[in-house]
């Protein structure tokens, strides 16, 4: 049993702990590219978890937010010729804008309808991107989102170097973690807790529950859009599949695996998922069958996810 005071202290300083971990993490990983992927998908899952974990809203259209961010970053750099950081900014805005649009329809519905409507609207964006070949490259993806060096005052970072690339991505993830922890600790964070705990009561207190959900959806879009931009820079291409249903499913899977509604669960889930995927794909091309099996096993046996189960074991 861990000392509860120690646990409370850890919770208080979780952002600091997370940053410390982010710094040493690549030194533990044999392949830096996987570490970068874990960060990106962890951030994506974090944004998703903001909705499902904290509000119980299951979205199956988060690929639209992630992919929308990725395309936005790429388009800002390629079509507008603006620097990469403007692309990042644009991706956050695009994620929020797409969330605001999808949310305007989806938030009118609840529960399973929400999952279906978000899935359908995300699929709609997929078709649009597929059709707008001139802008997005269609099935070939948006190519040439190249970032080679980053100019900082007094130094030049080589983005092609795996470790440097990792730390650049880690910087943005750390910023996102900081922002999320501020949101959760804010008065609005208290409202999110209240809505999750008891919707009717929150409404009687005077909270506009639907508006709270809508805002949470938009905030979630910001995180997912950022994750999408980081992926675009990491891959230097935005594949059309970024917007596909399978990508939405992937993030649901990672959150489920890690533990819904926990702060670090999404990263744990993304990490385990991607490591497993890499291991299994060394052995067979049909790794998706294991993804499905892991999904089924998780739902049946570990509904709290791995991180969630660990936290429960410690009495949380």
């Amino acid at each position, binding site marked *: 049993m861990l000392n509860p005071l120690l646990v409370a202290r850890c919770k208080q300083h979780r952002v600091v702990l997370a940053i410390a971990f982010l710094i040493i993490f690549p030194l533990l990983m044999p392949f830096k590219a996987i570490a970068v992927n874990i960060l990106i998908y962890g951030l994506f899952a974090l944004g998703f978890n903001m909705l499902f974990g904290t509000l119980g809203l299951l979205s199956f259209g988060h690929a639209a937010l992630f992919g929308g961010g990725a395309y936005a970053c790429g388009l800002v750099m390629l079509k507008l010729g603006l620097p990469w950081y403007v692309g990042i900014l644009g991706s956050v805005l695009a994620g929020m804008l797409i969330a605001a649009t999808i949310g305007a329809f989806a938030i009118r519905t609840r529960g399973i309808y929400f999952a279906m409507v978000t899935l359908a609207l995300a699929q709609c964006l997929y078709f649009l991107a597929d059709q707008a070949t001139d802008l997005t490259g269609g099935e070939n993806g948006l190519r040439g989102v190249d970032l080679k060096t980053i100019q900082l005052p007094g130094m030049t970072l080589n983005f092609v170097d795996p470790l440097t690339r990792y730390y650049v991505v880690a910087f943005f993830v750390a910023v996102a973690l900081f922002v999320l922890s*501020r*949101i959760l*600790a*804010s*008065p*609005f*964070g*208290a*409202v999110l*807790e*209240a809505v999750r*705990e*008891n919707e*009717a*009561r*929150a*409404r*009687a*207190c*005077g*909270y*506009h*529950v639907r*508006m*709270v959900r809508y*805002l949470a959806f938009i*905030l979630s879009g910001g995180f997912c859009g950022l994750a999408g931009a980081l992926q675009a820079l990491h891959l230097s291409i935005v594949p059309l599949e970024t917007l596909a249903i399978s990508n939405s499913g992937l993030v649901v899977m990672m959150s489920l695996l890690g533990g819904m509604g926990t702060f670090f669960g999404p990263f744990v889930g993304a990490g385990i998922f991607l490591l497993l995927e890499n291991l299994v794909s060394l052995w067979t091309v049909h790794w998706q069958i294991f993804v499905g099996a892991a999904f089924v096993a998780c739902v049946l046996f570990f509904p709290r996810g791995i991180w969630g189960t660990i936290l429960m074991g410690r009495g949380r």
Partner: protein
Amino acid sequence: MSDIILSAQSVGRTFGAFRALSGISVDFQRGKLTSIIGPNGAGKSTFFNLLSGAFPPSEGRIVFEGRDITGTPQHKFAALGIAKSFQITNVFPQLPVHENVRVALQALVSRYQIWQPRSSLPELADKADALLATVGLTDRRLRAAGTMAHGEQRALEIAMALAANPRLLLLDEPTAGMSPEETKAMMDLIVKLASERTVVLVEHKMKLVMGISDRLLVLHHGELLAEGTPDDIRHNDTVKRVYLGQREH
């Protein structure tokens, strides 16, 4: 100000083919404690839900302080000055008792503030402590609300309802499922609250409210059977026949 705080004007409600309530017109007087009583299935809860805006009436209007509030969404009631407690216990079970009240208070000042920490609103924490003292829950402030005894959770609910400093407090069977001691404590609390604001109470057990109410409404089969002071009701033959005759003796 007018001495009528709330009035129901020929309100009715149907659920599909079922007529739960029909043609009820009542004025509730400011500063008074009014109890709505009636046997099971009389339409008390439906009437309460119409008054508190849980769902709109199928016909008629509800007027609060001269303003038509029919169909106003639930989340706007707190700002109007109307608060309610629920028939089933309804708190934020996993949050600490103090946070329950603090969140209720916060609804009036900050809903969408996402950057400053909660501690930037220290006056809310103090007010929450004061409200907990009013309902006698000071020594429970850090407990998870869901782990408290039933009576304590009901008291917490009242503290949350009081957060908006409502001019009208609507209580739905506040003593349901309580032990005799808890019931006594709750009735004392209600009397204390009624000295400062208008209270409308739905209660199944007539005896309980006879002594404390200023006015009584008796519902039966979805209609208003009688209305008046406890004495009027006690001596009303119709009431005796359908209510007292059946249930209390």
